[in-house]
Every structure is written in C-alpha cells, then in structure tokens.
C-alpha cells in the first residue's frame, strides 16, 4: 500500500514537473483533515472543501458569492406544472478526470447522475455499502429519501426526477455537496477489481481540480483539470496544508507559508488586518445563533413570558463583548442576506423596566431558570459561556435568577432535544443551501419539534408550519417570499427564541491572491483564484 502510494506520488510529481517550471501553486492552510474524498457519506465542511468543491461538480451550482442557483453539469432544466417532475438536460462532452488510477472511456451521461443518487437512497444498490457501515446522512436529513419517487434516463443526456410531492427547495438541494456527481464507470471498475473502498480515497469527478495525492493529516495536492467544462482554474496546482490550530494558521499566513486561511481566531483578526502583506475579506455569515426556550415547560409556554425575557437581554452588549463587534443583532430566524428576510419585522426592544412589568403582568414572580451554554465554538457563536453570563446578569436586573449549565458537546446536542429539558438552550445554525426552508422548516416547524429533532424550542405553531408547508410546495419565488415573510411575523410575535446574532465570517489571505470569492454557504472554492508571481 505504502509502495503504491509512493509510486503514485512519484508519477504525480513527474506530471507536476512536466507542467513547467513556472507553475502557479496556491497553498491553502485548511483547518482539518478530510474524513474521506467521497462527499456523499459526510457532513463536515472540511471534507466538502477538500472533495466536493475541488474534484466534483453538481447538476446545479450556487453562483460564486451567492446562493442563487446556476447551471452546473445540467445546462438547463424544466419543472412540470404540478412541480413533481424535474427534467435536466446535461451538458454534452463533459469529461471525467483522467488520473493515474483511472482513465475514463466515456463522457458524463445520465447513468452517472442516476447512480450518484441511487447509491445513496437505495439500499439494494450494490454500491450503497461499498464500505461496510457507511451511511448517507445528508441525503436522509434533507429528505431526499422520501422526496424522490423515481429517476429516469430519458436519453443519454436527459434525466428526469419525479417527486412524491412538490418541493421547491429540491433544486437548491441538488447544488449541495452531498449531491456531487460521481462516475458510474469508475465505481463499476473498482467494484469489479474488488477495490470499492478506493472510491473514498482516490476520487474521480468532473470538477476544476484533479486529485493528485493525500498525505494523511498533512497535505492534499491537486492540479488544474485540463478538461474542466467550466472556466479553467487560474492556478496550476492547489495544495491544502492541513493546519488545525487557528493561531498557527495565522502565523503560517504571515510567514508566507500559505496564501489563504479560513477560520481565524477572533483575537487574531486585528493583527491580520494590520499586516500590509495580507487582506482580510469579510462577509455576513449565513447563520443565526439563538436562545431557544422550552415552550412545553411552564412558564415558558406563555409567549408573554418569552417576550419579557427577550426584552430584558441587551443583545448589542453581547455583540460588542463576545463578537468584538464582528456580528449583527438578529431579529429574524434567517439572516438578512437571505431572500425573503422580513426587514419590516420589529425586534423586541431592550427595555428592562417594560420586561419586568410584562413578567409581573403574566403572573410570574421569583423566576428561576437554566441557560444552557454549549462547550464549543461554532461559526455563529465564539463563546457561549460568556454570552450566557451576560444574559444571566441582564435577567438578574428584572429579578430572574438564571443558572448556567453545560454538557459535553455530543451530550449537549442530544439532551437539548429532550422534551422535558429544563431551561433555555443557546445554539445556532449555518445554512446548507441558501433556502429559507433550510432554516425555518428545519429549526422551527412542528415536524422538527419532537425528541431528537432540531426544533429545540419544541414550539409547534400550526399557522406558522402551514405557511412553511405552502412555501415549500410553491414554485413561484414571489409567492414563497410572501409566505416566509408572514411566517417571520408569527415567529416574532410568538417568540420561541431569543434571536441573538448573525456572525461575520473572515477570510484572511495574501495580497498576492486575486479572484477569491467568499461563499455565503461557508464552503471554500479556488477555481476562480489567481496568484501573482
């Protein structure tokens, strides 16, 4: 195995050298090791950056820097009147990558598309368990297992998906990383050779970069795909230098050992901005952090009580202290960069006196509650414990005694979904596909309110859920916008959450780097990036 890896590396090196002495190499200090190179079984952004955004492409893509859907491997598509049939016309002449370990004999066709989804949703597909114990979490959690009724190859370059019920976010789902299109021919070749597991180690796709080698936990090397159907990458070679510690990543960037780094520590941002050799791009994150009350628990079942507590907490003070100003106060469950954001919604103003009165009017006195603070940093929340402390102090001002509790992260995630959870929980969300459904339906609908579901407030409002259901069925975006705007009004009125913040995402890079576009969905792609010599 080792010898084989070495030989592969050697031949890859020869290929790279043959590329010429002036090859442009972009080095990206990535934050962790990919779990594998097949995007379908995984859920981590680190894996998607290393596999889905480099090696693979999808039927539809998100236009760089936006969440709007543009053609990918499908050059066009039609949706039937009833919203049940999606017919995709594939680009002709799209080539799978030629690597040291695989040479394709045919171009991309409908079989590859059907195979890419069938292997995830159909347990009888021989490739479903190409590695024992594998599961396809995103396919299931996005509901594609129940959403797709059938897939049909109309002709070599036409695929028709039939759904069980209309579902407007379906198209956006197909732009997600797990929906990357893989080569059926490659999978069949590996299966025939009894080497199915290699599918996860030696990827073959149609994306902008060709996988060259992975040195575990250290370096991933790619080269530009000469046969890429889109605009050819500007750099010749792309290298991921795996550097887990944020402070060390910042040092590497400053020392010129890499050109781009993600996820700087908040404390390092000022120093990085001050460095004349670096630029720090920033963008409002497609995320939200919230404090979810348990609306099944007294007195939090009363919206007046929840609203009173919301009015007692100074959110701007949290943004200033915890985010050092690098975020904005949230008033809706979706971020302002997302379509259908209802800016007309008025946030509950910070007013401790009014809050105190409102609480008394609701017949609540001497209230004791728990605030759950998660033990980890997340993109939407750098320090939950500090946030909880600020909330605790604010609540004390209106006579509410709050105790801060925490658990190990896995336990926290599990216990926070329990129906009899004691207390309000700090948590958040980062969007998967830029669709409001991916926030409101996942986090606040009645379906998600059960034990184990993502609706941590256990808030089930029929009117709200009906609006979401209607919006998911509608295909007209204006109609959907109107429905989601209405839903946000109900949300604010009922206050199942204290909406805390939408954080800012930073991307420091060398001034030599041009063309980098920040992706609101949080993935990192380099096909548009150039680097000055």
């Amino acid at each position, binding site marked *: 195995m080792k010898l084989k890896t070495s*030989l592969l590396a050697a031949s890859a090196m020869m290929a790279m050298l043959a590329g010429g002495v002036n090859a442009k190499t972009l080095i990206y200090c990535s934050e962790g090791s990919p779990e594998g190179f097949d995007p379908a079984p995984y859920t981590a952004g680190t894996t998607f950056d290393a596999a889905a955004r480099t090696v693979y492409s999808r039927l539809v893509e998100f236009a760089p820097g936006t969440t709007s859907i543009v053609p990918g491997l499908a050059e066009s598509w039609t949706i039937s009147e009833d919203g049940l049939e999606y017919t995709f016309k594939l680009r002709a002449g799209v080539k799978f990558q030629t690597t040291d370990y695989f040479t394709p004999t045919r171009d991309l066709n409908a079989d590859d598309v059907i195979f890419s989804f069938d292997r995830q949703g159909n347990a009888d597909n021989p490739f479903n368990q190409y590695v024992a114990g594998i599961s396809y979490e995103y396919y299931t959690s996005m509901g594609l297992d129940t959403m797709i009724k059938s897939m049909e190859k109309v002709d070599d370059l036409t695929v028709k998906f039939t759904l069980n019920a209309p579902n407007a976010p379906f198209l956006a789902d197909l732009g997600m990383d797990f929906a990357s299109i893989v080569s059926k021919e490659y999978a069949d070749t590996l299966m025939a050779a009894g080497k199915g597991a290699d599918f996860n180690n030696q990827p073959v796709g149609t994306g902008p970069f060709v996988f060259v080698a992975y040195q575990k936990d250290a370096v991933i090397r790619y080269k530009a795909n000469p046969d890429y159907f889109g605009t050819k990458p500007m750099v010749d070679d792309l290298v991921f230098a795996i550097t887990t510690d944020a402070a060390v990543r910042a040092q590497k960037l400053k020392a010129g050992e890499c050109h781009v780094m993600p996820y700087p520590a908040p404390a390092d941002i000022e120093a990085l901005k001050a460095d004349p050799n670096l630029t720090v791009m920033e963008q409002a994150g497609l995320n939200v952090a919230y404090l979810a009350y348990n609306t099944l628990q007294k007195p939090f079942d009363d919206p007046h009580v929840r609203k009173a507590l919301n009015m007692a907490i100074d959110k701007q003070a949290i943004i200033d202290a915890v985010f050092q100003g690098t975020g904005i106060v949230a008033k809706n469950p979706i971020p302002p960069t997302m379509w259908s954001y209802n800016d007309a919604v008025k946030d509950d103003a910070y007013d401790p006196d009014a809050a105190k009165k409102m609480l008394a009017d609701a017949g609540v006195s001497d209230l004791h509650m728990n605030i759950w603070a998660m033990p980890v940093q997340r993109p939407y929340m750098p320090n939950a414990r500090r946030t909880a402390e600020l909330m605790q102090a604010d609540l004390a001002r209106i006579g509410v005694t709050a105790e801060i509790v925490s658990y190990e992260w*896995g336990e926290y995630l599990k216990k926070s979904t329990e129906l009899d959870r004691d207390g309000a929980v700090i948590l958040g969300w980062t969007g998967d596909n830029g669709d409001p459904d991916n926030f409101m339906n996942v986090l606040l609908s009645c379906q998600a309110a059960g034990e184990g579901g993502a609706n941590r407030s256990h808030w089930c409002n029929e009117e709200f859920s009906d609006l979401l259901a209607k919006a998911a069925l509608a295909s007209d975006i204006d109609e959907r916008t109107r429905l989601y705007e209405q839903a946000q009004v109900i949300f604010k009125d009922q206050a199942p959450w204290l909406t805390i913040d939408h954080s800012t995402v930073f991307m420091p890079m060398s001034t030599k780097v041009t063309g980098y576009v920040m992706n609101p969905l949080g993935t990192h792609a380099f096909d548009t990036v150039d680097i000055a010599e």
Partner: protein
Amino acid sequence: MIKFILGRLSYLIPTFIGITIVAFGFVRILPGDPVLLMAGERGMSPEHYQEMMARLGFDRPIWQQYLDYLWKLLHGDFGNSIVTKQPVLSDFLTLFPATLELAFCAIVIAVVIGVPVGVLAALKRGSWFDQVTMTSALVGYSMPIFWWGLLLIILFSGNLGWTPVSGRMSLLYYFPTPTGFMLIDSLMSGQKGAFASAASHLILPSIVLATIPLAVIARQTRSAMLEVLSEDYVRTARAKGLTPRRVVGVHALRNAMIPVITTIGLQVGVLMAGAILTETIFSWPGIGKWMVDSISRRDYPVVQSGLLLIAGIVMVVNLVVDLLYGLINPRIRHS
C-alpha cells in the same frame, strides 16, 4: 539471562489485557458518541439514532463489544475508523514514522544536552551554573507545552523568520516517501535543499517535545552523579591518583548512568504523551494529532486500537530498557 528475559516477557500478557480493557473502556466512559456528533445541530430522531448505532455495532452489550474487539485483535484486526473507514493499523503505520522521527530527535536533544548538564551541575554543586540549570530544568518540567510551542513559533518563525512555522517539509518540495522518515526520504530524493528543509522543520517541534525529558534527565543525572561521587570507590579512585576526567568519566558516570538509562526509557511514554500536544501545535502528521482528532470525533475503533498500539510501543521500549539495565547491572540480572 534467559530466565530474566522470560520473566520480564511474562509481565506483558496481563499488561496487554489490562490495556485493552482501559483503552476500550476509556472512550466509552467519555460522554457523547460518534453518532450524536455526526448529527450536529440538525439532531436525529431516536429511531434513526438507534439504526445508526446498530449499523456501527454499538447497540450490543458492552461485554460483547469488548470480546469481539479482543477476538479481532487476536486475529490481527485492529478495526476500521468509523469516520474515514480506513483500517486503523494502516493509518497507524503511515503516521508512526513522523512521530518516531520527532521523538528520536527530541530524545537525542534531551540526552545530548541533559546528561552533560547534569554531570556538570553535580561536579559544580552549589555554583551559579548548578543553580541556573536546575532552576531552568524545573521551569522546563513545568512548562505548558501548548503555550511554549506557540511562543517559540511566534518568536522564531513569526518575528525572526528563522524557522518554518509548521509541517514537515516545505510544500514546494514533492517527492516519494518510501520510508516515512522525512530526513531519509529527502536525502533519497536527491532534490537540492530538501534535507535542509526537513531538518529546519524539525527544530522547533523537537525542542518543544524535548523540553520535559531534558529537564528530567538533567535533574536525574545530577542527583545520580552526586550519589555516586560520594561513594567509597570514587574516593578510592581519586586516592589512587587517577585524573579527574577518568574518575568522572569511567568510575562515576558509568555507575550514575544506570538509573539515568531507566529514566530515559520511561521518557518514551512522556514523549508519546507530549507528541499529542506538540504535533497538534506544529501540524505534525503523527499519531499524537491523529489520536486527538479521533478522540474529539469519538472514533472508538481508532482510539482504542491506537492507544493499544502506543501502549505496546511503550511496553516494548520499557522491556528493552529493563533488559539493558540487566545487561549493565549484573546485580539485577542475578537477583
């Protein structure tokens, strides 16, 4: 001697079983599990959770899982990572040379500096040299590794630009790595500057990893030397007119080295523990960083088998030290 070796080997079996129980139990005692972490903020219905646990075989009684693990171990199967799906043993073998290379450099630094410093401090007992070195050793021993590593990076790599920040090799070099030891592979590659790059990448992590063993070895050498120097045979050696160099080098040091060798052997365990933090700071792709990642993902098979393999290495090294000890100290061998 054979009886001595067999005696020492017989300790290995119960130790091995003990380690499997500890390693197996350790990860399961930690709160949280891999399926919960996989689900993240999205949550997972209790039914799907059960299905996932069953798919991974974690729904079975704990004793059954343990026996299954033991059975597979006896057949040479260390299991597969539930995250990467790769065999644990092959990942270990890929990553271990990086740790070994780093640990070797660290122990060389610790011995080459620690022993002479300890000897000199003993010979000049109470002098400023003794006080400065022994205080430094105490500071080194108490040093928080993560802080120390980051401090060196900021100073030498960030401000002075003398050493690379992290990694094993400049990414501009690219060559096959048949041995996994970057110093050797870089020489074999024949690429100009590759060896220098590999060596420069080793400097800071080796210093950081060597810090605690260096402190321990220096202090142990000093106290062993002091003890030996007050022995009658040293006084006799002096009395019969031997040069101070011969008294110290032959009569004192040789005897003082007996406990020091044991200490050096014990430092292998410390190096393995230190590697966890050092490798994380320096993005060193070895088994320490691998274990940290696996623990945070609750990758049970990797943690339990990884711990076992690391413990196995520490055990073998300690066995070798025991045997060496017996070799240089006949009193042990014949007791």
